């Protein structure tokens, strides 16, 4: 006779309310799992999609994503000259916040050599890739633009020629691909009035030097003005058969730069920018699991205590211990499993509504289920302990 089933049938409302409440907690646990995976997936998406043989960045810097790295643009010629290098492309990456269709949007810009360079979008799902040196852009669909839209950025307006849905920025925002000079212009080009004002200030400073004539000061003005030909990294493709560690060592030794392969670049992110959030999410998940198991434990304990006289009667009329164990444990596991299934269904139908990417991995869900199942058994222990030590004599008397 399935006593647990009959008890739950009689207390449907309370069981459903408990399943709903604990199920919501499990939904949050599963969402945290998805957030954890989504955080890593997004953080590494651009690295994985770009995937050159080497990332060359400023020396002793973990750039270009985990840490800022700035290099003069011409350095890619130096890298190209290293034996074993087939192609060396300038690469620029930065975050901006601009008005897109009247709304302030945070996104990241990738600037790359659009004519046979590395670092551009891998797959275009609508439109085409950038084919001109200026005023064309490819955007991630997250930005909410369509092919043909004209987007003003800085001093110029860019036409959306293609859309991607793969890589996003390391913080999960949309990516916009521009040609390298366009990206540099959006990042470094100052307002004309500000340029004039800075030029005047510099000229005044130079003219004030007693060893410079006015003509000499004016000649020095142009080379001393700030340079916009700055990049963040050089992406390298090696010649077939080239020894990657050897080429990296040559770049570091002769060009005083740092070179990482894609795996090392991933590790820089995982141990750097992503580590804090990853630990935070792990802590939240652990705490939520403990809270869930504690709640189930208290609910099962309360249910058991309410039945304690019936349990005493069962013992008195000779019910073996396994009948009592089955009653308590079955309720605990049914509550746990039902709440977990509720959580799985709920997160499965709502994950797309979360602002950050929730990446649900079956392996994580299975692992969580195993932990939850063990938690359900653990949760029933307090109730079981009380039920098993109940004296049958309790059934006697008024």
């Amino acid at each position, binding site marked *: 006779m399935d006593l647990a089933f009959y008890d739950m049938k*009689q207390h449907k409302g309370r069981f459903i309310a408990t399943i709903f409440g604990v199920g919501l907690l499990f939904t949050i646990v599963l969402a945290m799992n998805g957030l954890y995976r989504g955080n890593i997936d997004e953080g590494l998406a651009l690295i994985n999609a770009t995937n050159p043989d080497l990332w060359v960045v400023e020396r002793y810097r973990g750039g270009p994503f985990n840490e800022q790295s700035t290099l003069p643009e011409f350095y890619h010629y130096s890298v190209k000259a290293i034996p074993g290098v087939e192609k060396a492309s300038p690469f620029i990456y930065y975050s901006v916040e601009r008005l897109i269709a009247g709304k302030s949007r945070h996104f990241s810009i990738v600037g790359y050599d659009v004519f046979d360079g590395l670092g551009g979008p891998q797959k275009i799902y609508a439109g085409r890739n950038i084919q001109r040196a200026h005023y064309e852009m490819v955007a991630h669909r997250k930005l909410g633009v369509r092919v043909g839209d004209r987007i003003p950025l800085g001093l110029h307006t860019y036409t959306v020629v293609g859309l991607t849905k793969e890589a996003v920025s390391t913080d999960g925002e949309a990516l916009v691909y521009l040609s390298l000079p366009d990206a540099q212009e959006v990042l470094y080009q100052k307002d004309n009035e500000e340029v004039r004002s800075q030029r005047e200030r510099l000229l005044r400073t130079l003219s004030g030097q007693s060893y410079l004539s006015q003509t000499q000061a004016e000649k020095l003005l142009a080379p001393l003005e700030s340079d916009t030909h700055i990049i963040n990294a050089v992406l390298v493709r090696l010649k077939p058969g080239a020894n990657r560690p050897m080429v990296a060592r040559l770049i570091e030794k002769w060009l005083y730069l740092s070179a990482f392969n894609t795996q090392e670049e991933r590790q820089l992110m995982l141990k750097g920018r992503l580590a804090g959030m990853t630990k935070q999410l792990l802590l939240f998940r652990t705490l939520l699991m403990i809270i869930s198991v504690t709640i189930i434990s208290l609910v099962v304990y309360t249910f058991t205590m309410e039945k304690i006289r019936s349990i005493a009667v069962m013992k008195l009329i000779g019910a073996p211990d396994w009948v009592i164990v089955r009653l308590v444990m079955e309720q605990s596991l049914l509550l746990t499993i039902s709440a977990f299934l509720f959580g799985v269904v709920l997160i499965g139908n709502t994950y797309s509504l979360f602002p950050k990417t929730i990446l649900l991995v079956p392996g994580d869900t299975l692992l969580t289920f195993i932990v939850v199942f063990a938690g359900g058994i653990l949760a029933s222990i307090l109730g079981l302990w009380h039920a098993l030590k109940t004296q049958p004599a309790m059934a006697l008397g008024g």
Partner: protein
Amino acid sequence: MEILRIEGLAKIFGSGHIQVRALEDINLSVSKGDLVALLGPSGSGKTTLLLCISLILEPTMGKIVFDGQTIFQKNGWAGVDMRRVRREKIGFIFQSHNLIPFLTARQNVLFPLDLVGMNGEQAESRARELLEYMEIADRADYLPSLLSGGEQQRVAIARALANNAKLILADEPTAALDTTRGKRVMELLKKIAKENQSAVIVVTHDVRMIEGFDQVIHLKDGRIETEKTNAQN
């Protein structure tokens, strides 16, 4: 045929200087179909004796022979599975009925049958038969909370009879009922003793309820004060 024999039974709680003698030198013999009343004021040892007979409380000394098998002797329990004896041979009726609240009347009767491995149509038929015998078959699918006190007690008696118990122990079965319903329950117990040939031991305060009992045992301070058999009534 003797179902229960108790010889020199004593139960002492505590140890050393602080000892309470709850039962002392209890001798009792109950045969098939006997109807026995245990009377006595509060603290006289009725419940302690019932617990010893129920094989829940271990006596300090004496001997208990149940259905021809020595269950307890001076060295302690005689290696018997007490729960098994209870579920197969003893039926219990309680003062507050003690039906399992989340099971219907029918399921409450089915429960002890399930414990001895009887299920399916055989168990259903037995439960139906018992509920009809107790004249409560029309309430078979009601939860205890929807039954009156008298109806609940009749279901409890049906449950106690489910496994053809050789001994039925009733702890103040009429205490929670009015006089009319109480008398009706006592009549049922008499009927059971006669028709089923089960020995019935009833613990009660109420002397008005024990008319027609085969033995009436008065307990006082843990000792049998007076004992009357049917012949002496």
